[in-house]
C-alpha cells in the first residue's frame, strides 16, 4: 500500500510514464556520473515501474544525479529518467526531517573554488 502510494506520487510529480521505456539503456550510456551511482538511470525507470521506490529513496544515487538531463535529451522514447530521479528525491525530502543538506554541514564543505550559487542551488535541490 505504502509502496503503491510512493509509486503514484513519483509518477504524479514527474509526469513520466515508465511504460514507454524500451530498455535500450541509452540513458545510462549517456550518463556522465554513471560510476558514482548505485542505481543508474535505466534502473530508476524499471524500479519505479516495479514499485521499488523505497530502495531508491534510501540510495545515495538520488543525490548523485547531476540533473544534467543528458538522459532526458538522449532518450529515444521521451521517458525522461532525470525527472523520475528528481521525483524520488522529492519524495525523500518531503518527509519531515529528511533534508539531505543541513546548514551546519556547509562550513566544512566550503573551499575557495565553490561558487556561491552552488550552495544556493544545493539547498534548493536537497532541502524542503
Amino acid at each position, binding site marked *: 500500500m505504502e509502496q503503491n502510494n510512493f509509486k503514484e506520487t513519483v509518477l504524479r510529480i514527474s509526469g513520466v510514464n515508465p511504460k514507454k521505456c524500451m530498455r535500450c539503456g541509452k540513458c545510462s*550510456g549517456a*550518463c556522465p556520473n554513471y560510476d558514482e551511482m548505485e542505481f543508474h538511470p535505466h534502473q530508476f525507470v524499471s524500479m519505479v515501474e516495479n514499485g521499488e521506490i523505497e530502495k531508491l529513496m534510501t540510495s545515495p544515487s538520488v543525490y548523485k544525479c547531476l540533473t544534467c538531463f543528458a538522459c532526458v535529451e*538522449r532518450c*529515444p522514447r521521451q521517458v525522461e529518467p532525470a525527472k523520475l530521479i528528481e521525483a524520488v528525491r522529492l519524495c525523500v525530502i518531503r518527509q519531515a526531517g529528511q533534508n539531505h543538506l543541513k546548514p551546519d554541514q556547509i562550513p566544512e564543505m566550503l573551499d575557495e573554488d565553490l561558487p556561491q550559487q552552488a550552495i544556493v542551488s544545493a539547498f534548493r535541490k536537497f532541502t524542503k
Partner: protein
Amino acid sequence: MQRIGVFVCWCGSNIAATVDVKKVAETLGKEPCVVYYENYQYMCSEEGQNKIINAIHEHKLSGIVICSCSPRMHEATFRRTAQKAGLNPYMVEIANIREQCSWIHKDMATATEKAIILGRAAIAKVHLNTPLQAGESPVVKRALVIGGGIAGIQTALDIADAGFEVDIVEKKPTIGGKMSQIDKTFPTLDCSACILTPKMVDVAQNEKIHIYSYSEVAAVKGFVGNFDVTIKRKARYVKEELCTGCGACTEKCPQKKVPNDFNLGLDNKHAIYIPFAQAVPKVATIDPDYCMMLKTGKCGVCSKVCAAGAIDYKQQDELVQQQYGAIVVATGYNPIDLKNYDEFAYSQSPDVVTSLEFERLTNAAGPTGGVLLRPSDRQHPHTIVFVQCVGSRESGEGCGKTYCSKICCMYTAKHAMLTREKYPDTEVYVFYIDVRTPGKNFDEFYRRAVEEYGVHYIKGMVGKVSPENGKLMVQASDLLDNKQLKIEADLVVLAAAIEPDPSARPLATMLTTQMDTNDFFTEAHPKLRPVESATAGIFLSGCCQGPKDIPETVSQASACAAKVIGLLAKDKLLGNPCVAESNELMCNGCSSCEKVCPYGAISYVDKEFKMPNRTIAVRRVANVNPAVCQGCGACTVACPSGAMDLKGFSNSQIMAEVDAICK
C-alpha cells in the same frame, strides 16, 4: 410498377427458431407490389434457388427480396440465382434476419416484428432498384515500373516473362538501386553484384523491357487499364543511342572534383561519368552542376575524345507520353540523414559512418578498393563499434522514426562477421537494444557472428561518441553487466534507420494512392492485399511499402508482377456497377465532389446544353469514370445540388429504407 417476390429463409432453425418465418412471409406478402411470397428451409440450397428461379419465371418478378442471412454471406449467391433466371442481379435485395435479428433476439414476437420491418425496408429499396450493368473498359497491355532497384527489376523481368511490355523509369543514370552499392548479402554472404548484375543485363537484353534511365514520372492521368503517363527524360547531354560506354570521356574529363554519390561522397568522380562498371544502360552522363562546358562554355574535351560523337551539350529535357494498363511503384528507400545525431558525432568525425557507407568501404569496387580503411587517415581500424537502431524505434518529435527498420540487425551482423573474418585482429563491438532475426537462417547467422567470429554483442545503447586524439570515445552502458563502458574505437558504424525515397510523396499525389504518416505507401489490405494499393491498377513493390530485406523485396516484387500479369491478361475490365453518377443537368461544376474523391475518378468537361428559348450554354459538369470509381459515395454528400448519386445506394433508395424502418 415492380412485381416483387419475397423469399423467407429458415436457415434450418437458425432463423426459424426465433422468427415466425411463415408470419413474416405472409405479412410481407401484403405489401404493395409484392405478388409472390414463400418461406423455405434453405433458400441458398439448390432446391431453394430453384424455387426462386421458378417464381421469377412464373410470376414475372421484376425484383426479389430474400430474408435470410447477411448479404455479406449470400448476396453474391442470390444475385447469380437471379441472373440464371434472367433477372438483373442488382434487382435483388437481402434482408438480414439472421445475424441482425434471429441470432441476437430471444423473444419470438420481437424478432418476428423486427424481421418484418427489415423485410419492408428491403422491399422499399427494391422498389427503387434499377437494373445495373457493370461497365467495361479495355486494358492497355503494357506496364510501367517506377524505380529500377532490385524490386523494380524483378517485377519488370517477371512481367516481361509473361509476354507483356514493361517500361522502367529510373531517376538515376543506371538501374540497380541500393543493391548495387551493397558488398555482400546476408545470410548467405553472396556477393551482391554477382547476383544483381546478371539480372540487370537480363533487363537490358529483354526485348519486352524498355528502360527510361535518368528519367522521372511527371504526370499521371487515367485509371486502371488506361493510365496515361508523362515521363520526363532529363538531359544527360549524351546521346544514349550513340554512346558505347567505352569510358574514354570519363577518363579525359578535366573536372575531377565531383563528389561521387555512388560511393556516398567518400571519393570523387569526373563531371562526365558512368556510375559503375556494370551500369545499365552503360551510358555516360554529364553532371551539369560541374561540367565546365555547360557552365562556362569552355572545355569540350569529352566531345573531342568521343569517337561515337555521342556528346550533345545542347540536349534538353524531353517529355515522353505513354499508355499503361498497370503501374508498379518501386521507389525504394534511403538511410535517414544523421546530421542531427550529435551524440554519435556523425557530423564531427569522418570516422563515424553509416552502414551503407561501410558497405562502400568494404566493397572491392569502392573508394578503398575493398580494403577496410578509416576515411580520416586511411589507416586500418582495430576497434570498430557498431551502433544499432540509430533513428529507428524513436517516439516523439525528433528526426527519428517510430518503426523498426527491420534490416539493420542482419546487416550489422554481416558487417561484424565479415570484418572479423577478413581482419581477425580487429575488435568488433555491436551495441543493440534487441537483436531481431526472424527469417530463414537469420538467427543462425547472428549466432555464428557471436560464437564463431567472436563479435562482442552488448545489450545497451551507446550514449555518447566523442572524437578524442584521433580516436572515438564510445560511452555506453552494458545493461546486463550493469556497468558503463568506455571504448576507444577507430571506427563507429551507425545502423541508420531507413525511410521512403523523397520522390514517393509527390508520386503518391499523382497516382492518387494513399500513404501513411511515414510516407510508406499503404497497401489495399494489410494482410490480404499486400502488393496492391487501394487505387485500382497501382501496385507496390519493395521498400516503398515498408522496410524489407532483399529476399522479401524480391518475393514481393514477384507477387506484384503476378498481380500485374493477372490484370494485363484481361482484355476488358468489368467494373463495379454501384458507382457514382452525375446528373449533368443539375451539376454546378463546383468541384466539391472532385475534392473528396479518393480515386480521382471525377473529371470535368465543358459541355453544351440547350437552354430556355433555344439558346445554348456551355457548362462545366462533372464526369465520373465508372472504371475508377469504387462507389464509396463521398461525392454524393459533397454535392450540394444532389446531382451526384450512387447507383445501388441512391438517395431515394436509402430514404425509402429509412421510411420503411421508421413508420
